[in-house]
């Protein structure tokens, strides 16, 4: 039980990587605070996680032995997030791990100058600012606690560029910068901050992942072939499994990585090394 006694807060927990990490953490003994917007957002062109999915994730984690509380909140709403965290702290007494996983992949797929201001701002607001907001609210507590591990889910898009994805790439690069700066802010206060960069992750049915097919849609890749297209782009000729990301997150969350901070952990089947 690598997370015995720990309380972890995971955003974007309804499905996908959020669900995979939540279940992994639950299995390793953590109690969980699950957060998701649990509804569709205007101007995001695909269905986001739902209440039903969030409840499902929470139930599966409970079956694995975790005490779970789930919350519906928008990562763009600082006040709402503060309320959630405050309520969670009242119930759990502590937060040891923050996994900033909430994020959108689209609206994307346009050459830079065709992106509307609204689209640009939306992408930054959710993918970059969202992580900052959570760190603001939770970091405050963690630094007082003099303990904590913050994991920011970036992407290989935070390390290299992708065509027609400037909003997403900028936000993810921002996450990495934010991580390094936060690392310096928090290091003396014994709170670690690291970034986790997934490559192309397979849309698994079990965790109801949707990211890869959405990226494919944005990039105008044939949906039926998108898996093989992305597979071929990764040097190991394999897609990353959600499990792989969950394993990396687990290590970063646990005490095993006690002196790892400001790091960028890449799980991408070799993509950025090309």
């Amino acid at each position, binding site marked *: 039980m690598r997370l015995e006694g720990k309380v972890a807060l995971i955003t974007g927990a309804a499905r996908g990587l959020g669900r995979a990490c939540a279940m992994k953490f639950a299995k390793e003994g953590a109690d969980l605070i699950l957060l998701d917007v649990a509804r569709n957002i205007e101007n995001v062109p695909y269905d986001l996680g739902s*209440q039903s*999915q969030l409840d499902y994730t929470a139930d599966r984690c409970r079956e694995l032995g975790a005490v779970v509380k789930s919350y519906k909140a928008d990562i763009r709403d600082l006040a709402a997030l503060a309320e959630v965290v405050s309520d969670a702290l009242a119930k759990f007494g502590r937060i040891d791990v923050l996994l900033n996983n909430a994020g959108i992949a689209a609206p994307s797929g346009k050459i830079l100058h065709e992106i509307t201001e609204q689209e640009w701002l939306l992408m930054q607001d959710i993918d970059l600012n969202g992580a900052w907001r959570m760190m603001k609210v939770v970091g405050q507590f963690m630094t007082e606690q003099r303990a904590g591990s913050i994991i920011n889910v970036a992407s290989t898009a935070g390390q290299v560029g992708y065509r027609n994805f400037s909003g997403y790439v900028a936000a993810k690069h921002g996450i990495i910068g934010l991580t390094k700066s936060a690392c310096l802010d928090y290091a003396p206060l014994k709170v670690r901050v690291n970034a986790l960069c997934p490559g192309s992750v397979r849309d698994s049915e079990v965790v109801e992942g949707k990211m890869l097919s959405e990226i494919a849609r944005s990039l105008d890749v044939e949906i039926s072939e998108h898996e093989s297209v992305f597979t071929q782009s990764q040097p190991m000729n394999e897609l990353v499994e959600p499990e792989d990301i969950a394993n990396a997150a687990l290590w970063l969350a646990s005490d095993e990585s006690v002196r790892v901070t400001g790091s960028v952990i890449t799980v991408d089947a070799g993509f950025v090394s090309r």
Partner: protein
Amino acid sequence: MTNHMEKRKNSSSNSLYRLLGNNMESEILFHSLSHIVPDSVTAADVESALAQLTDELRHALSDEISWCLVQHDLSLATTEGKTKKRIEWELNQGEPLLLSSTIKAILFSLPKGKCLVLKASRMYFSRFAMQSVYAKLLRKPVVSLELTKRKPSELYLDNLKQAPVAEVWHDDSESVDVEPQIRTKSFTLPLQDHREVLLVFGRVLSTFSSTNTISVPVLFDQPLVQDAGISLLPTSLSSESAISINLDELSRFLNQPIELDKELIKDVVDSWGTDSNFPIGLVLNNFIMDSDQNWMASSCLSSAGQLLFPLTVDCQPVSDSQMQLTLSYDATLFSSAQADLLENTMINVAADLLSGCKGNVQDLLMVSQSDTKGVIATGEQGLHARMLHNGRIEEKVSQLARLQPQAAAVKMKDEVITYSELEVQSDKLAHYLIEQRIKPGCHVGLCLSRSSAMITAALAVMKVGAVYVPIDPMYPNDRISFICQDADLGLLVTDSSEGIERVDINTLHLDSWVEAAHSYTGQYKIEQALKADAPAYMIYTSGSTGKPKGTLIPHQNVQYLIGAVEQEFELSNQDVWSMFHSFSFDFSIWEMWGALLTGAQVCVISYDDSRDTKAFIDVINKEEITILSQTPSAFNQLTLVDESTPVGASLRLVVFGGESLNTGSLLPWFDRHPESQCRLVNMFGITETTVHVTAKEITRLEAINRSRSVGKAINGWNIYILDDEQNILPNGIVGEIYVSGKGVATGYYNREKLNEERFIANPFGDGKLYRSGDKGRLLPNGELEHLGRFDSQVKIRGFRIELGEIKHQLLACEYVQQAAVVVRNANEGDDASAQIVCYVLMDGEAYSDIWTSLNQVLPEFMLPSTVYRVSEVPLTANGKLNEKRLPEFVISESSRTEQIKENINIEVCADNDQSTDFQDKLLVVWQEIFNKEVTTQDNFFDLGGNSLYAIQMATKMREFGMPEVNLRDLYKYQTISNIAKLVAA
């Protein structure tokens, strides 16, 4: 090279040959053959055929190809700790890296362009038909009884590829150092090679015998080759019969003595000891002959320590009186519960056998007496029976009228009837019935269109102790007449404006009844006390012998039904139920009385609204319906329209019934309506056991797992899964579903023989046991998995249909000599696109007469979509319909995505001036849909029309702004000119 080879994606994992791509510079041709299938000779032939193939390829491609055979035993890989799934996955990825290091070295050292053939020798990949393999690859079966002249080390290699056996030793003492868990022994059998003599084909494993007879399992009844007195018989892994080869005879035949060295055999057996597995004693194997005359036999196998097969039972004698059975199983394929079940079953059967059972195999008890109770208990919920109200239906409604008189009871569109109004009105109607001498037990037919009046009428009938028989006014006249006769109706109530055509039955128009009853006041008088176990209603269902049959259900059954779920579903008088289904389907019983017995409201959905999903959703939202009952097909439609016209927050419970539910399709609904706000419950039910039998809550978990469970029996109902002899089957085994308990009907009306067959004495308790004809199995947790029917009854979009009834009606047509009726999905895998397809053998040209005649007797949902004329109706050897050999159901491209609608019914618009205009337009429409020249006298069906064309026609007519034509009218009038006349009229 890659271009010429098959893409990996396209080959199934069962194929013998697969091309595994990888990013190394060679392709790997994966040849998968179980060790047990080919013997050395045939294997060698397969390989040489393969060599030839690659040779030809090389010439064709002018690439450097060499051919290298690598023996690979996957068992070595498994001992490296990988699961079978992982291995398969790796192989599918083209990843050879799981192989032993020797083989890795070979692979990596291959220069570019080489073709490598890998041979795997585990059974995991060996699911294919032996015959086709050999037929394709070999031209002549090869024979040789035994033996080779190989060196011991070669022999070892051969053995290695058969099974994970090792530790060989020979008389010449050249021992090979291998892993200890594998053992073989070898001994000599002097034999002469005779290639022409084939006794066995493939490998033969035979247990040790102390006599000179070897038992050879036989797959086929006939030899493959019969030539000059020599038979060629292939072997099999499992067989029902065996032939004996007597070694004495064999040696006579071969003109060569064959003797088993009994001493040596005894040594071998002894050396294994009693803790070994029951030995396979002898392997007859074909080896390539060598010119040398020294023969050595290949020999015995042991499976000690290794799991060769996913499920294995080893038997070994422990002592003279004891045999130990060891069950080994692959835990990734079988759960421990299943293993326990198998173990118990084997013990029970063995016990039965040992107790001297002399009967048939079928008589062996799979479940011991003591276990039977446990098995039965899983399906029994009868102990928890609970009546909602201890009395008749109308009594409860009257009671509610006193308690909450102003509460809304029945709504339809803008009409609202309170409980007290319902009570007063049904009292009046009851008065009139008594005047008309309607006595308790009398059957009163209610042939009424959807309205609040039909509920009031039903209550009135029940109040006088009579039984209401709901009849859909949209049924064809013949059917209505039949039901009237068959049900011995004392009175038929109708609201039709057409003239009432039936003579023998006392008929009453609803309006007359209402008017006549108007002046009654006060209480009516019943001569005798009415009981709750008397029948409340009789519903007709499709009959396999050609005519429908009526099921009588008593009042108390309905009380138990609602009582069973009241608490679980939190039913209250705050609920608003929809009544969506026809009065003549028993789903409506649940809808109506579920509401009215609990003091809730029932909202009758008009026919039009029930066909227009958007309008229906508007009603749901406007009336704030809380409980919705739907067939899965209808719910699919609802889910689609819900995207644009959302169902509101009032809906808190959806009950599915009528057909099997595809839980996976519910995910989009859950995303928009979380389970915490709207519960979904799937209920399996039968008319003969009062609407529902089981209930299962459906959440995202069930949807993601594609669960097929229909849940446990509801309180008061019991389920048993029995075999043909009506013995209890263990949980998990498929059998027939029998139901007992509070829901069992009184029986069919006027069907003595059928009642005897279907409502039998209950060996497990009180009352009757109903034999459903449904296939299913009980899971250990008591949940039922419904697996279809044993007969030809089908459910199409919730409608229960006996295909036999349709067939009978076809045969009733004058010119039809033979007929076959099947159900096909227009869109593969999509049950909602199910259609009834008929094939007839007929003489004469009166094809369209068939449609006319069917139209007269069958309700809309039973009308076939197509009737094909065939020159023969193919039968099996047993004289049953050979469905596989029926001509394929062909759907035109344009209609491929259309679903059959139950009918296409909108008001016929009468507009005289437009009749010629109408004809012309209709001509254009028909020409478009039939894609040929059409005249106004051409018959729709003779042109090839069927219900799919009817849908296309309706769509186009709508596009042209034409008045619409009822499907039944189309079937009746059949030509453009007749239809135009109808429209003009």
